[in-house]
């Protein structure tokens, strides 16, 4: 149905859609600020903010990773226009998460933070996940894509796979005994990364020389 397709195409490509996604992604942040303002962050507000920003970081990493399979499976290639924004939101929430820890948990005690990063595996892996997002955020502009060249750029941005795994492990190593939520995010990550492996294997198979038919 070409008419319908062009409609969804037009919606996805439209300014309105971009605006809706942009606002949608900032709602978790606004909701946090609103709750803080109304004193609704519960008995342990800093823990609440730490958990909320951490969870949203992981969610946005996974939503970003969902774009490529969604484009293919829904035949909506134009969805690509949201990927940079979603990735930058992941970085935004990750920065808030790290800042909450550095400021409100450690009060900028750099020696203590360094000790934590070295000594506490769940912080080590969480920090790694964040640090790997930094070059991705920096090179997210059109200028950097041009400078690096598409191939190099794409290779660099595969670091997001490690960030996703690091995020899940960070969460898993944090919880005391109930692993349901980190396990769920782990399963979603596994599906999203398996899709890449599957596509890569299919691509590799397609590139193999076709055996010449004999005995015709």
């Amino acid at each position, binding site marked *: 149905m070409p008419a319908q397709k062009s409609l969804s195409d037009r919606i996805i490509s439209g300014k309105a859609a971009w605006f809706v996604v942009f606002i949608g992604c900032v709602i978790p942040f606004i909701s946090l600020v609103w709750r803080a303002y109304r004193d609704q962050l519960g008995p342990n507000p800093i823990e609440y903010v730490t958990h909320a920003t951490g969870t949203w970081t992981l969610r946005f990493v996974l939503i970003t990773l969902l774009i490529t399979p969604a484009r293919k499976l829904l035949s909506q290639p134009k969805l690509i226009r949201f990927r940079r924004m979603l990735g930058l939101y992941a970085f935004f929430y990750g920065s808030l998460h790290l800042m909450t820890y550095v400021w409100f948990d450690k009060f900028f005690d750099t020696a203590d933070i360094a000790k934590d990063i070295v000594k506490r595996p769940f912080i080590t892996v969480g920090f790694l996940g964040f640090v790997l997002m930094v070059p991705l955020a920096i090179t997210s502009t059109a200028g950097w894509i041009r400078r690096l060249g598409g191939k190099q750029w794409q290779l660099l941005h595969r670091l997001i796979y490690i960030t996703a795994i690091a995020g899940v492990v960070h969460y898993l190593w944090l919880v005391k*005994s109930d692993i349901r939520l980190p396990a769920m995010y782990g399963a979603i990550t596994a599906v999203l990364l398996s899709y890449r492996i599957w596509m890569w294997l299919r691509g590799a198979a397609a590139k193999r020389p076709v055996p010449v038919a004999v005995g015709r």
Partner: protein
Amino acid sequence: MIIRKPADLRYSQVTPKQVYLSRRRLLSSVAGAVAGAGAVAGIGGLVNPSTAVLASMKLNAVKSKYTVDEKLTPIEAVTHYNNFYEFGTSKEQPAELSKKFDTSGWTVSVEGAVAKPRKFDLDQLLKLAPLEERIYRMRCVEAWSMVVPWIGFSLSEVLKQVEPTSKGKYVAFQSYYDAKQMPQGRYGGIPFPYVEGLRIDEAMHPLTLLCSGLYGESLPNQNGAPVRIVLPWKYGFKSIKSIVKIRVVEKQPPTTWNLANAAEYGFYSNVNPEVDHPRWSQSKERRIGEFLKRNTLMFNGYGDQVASLYTGMDLRKNY
């Protein structure tokens, strides 16, 4: 109108909680209407909905010498920020999911290496000694802390009644567990029923509290109703909730968090700023309601009273 209940009211005579709550709700809505009319300012606080939800029975308690002079953690936090994995692993779930927890007909069996084993009903148990209000610091292993006005008396009053024999070296505690009433328990990731233990000298220490209330009233379900243990110098998980069995034993008994993860949770679990949890530091804590972190004190500040229990012990090994 303030309804005063006599001090010697039996638990069995208390108005059923659901009836009680619906009356309170009616009262608060009336109060809301009155306050809305701008007539009475004080009434809103009197029947504040958050206290109404947990109120079940006023307890008369005498002041205790085992008390700290520190700012109390607000009751809203004490009753809505709980670790009680039988009712869910998030902090908010226990208050929500324990509302219908049926504690009627509760008994506590005190048994094992004792001369006079006995099964107490709640009335008998709580009459063994005068109820005291004790304001204790509470330090969770997760590095947050509170100050709670508990009500109860020293566990030693109970143990004296049953007369531990010379074989009684430890005391094992067991919580109530019913998968039907506690359906979230199966997701907790730790084995139930919850069990805890103390050395007999720790159990006989006057600070070891058999607790039946907080903030002047009987324990809310989410805080371990109807009766629990409170150990202010140990991490919170040692303070076992909703107990049904106290067993005096010869060998060191198993404890739930140690069974779940022995490398992280030891038998003693005394608050100790110098021995970190493998995954996080224990040197500081966040007192609920405060912005800056506090330094955690050795034995949670109860060193003067309890340090002698551990003379000569390597506390790094016996964490």
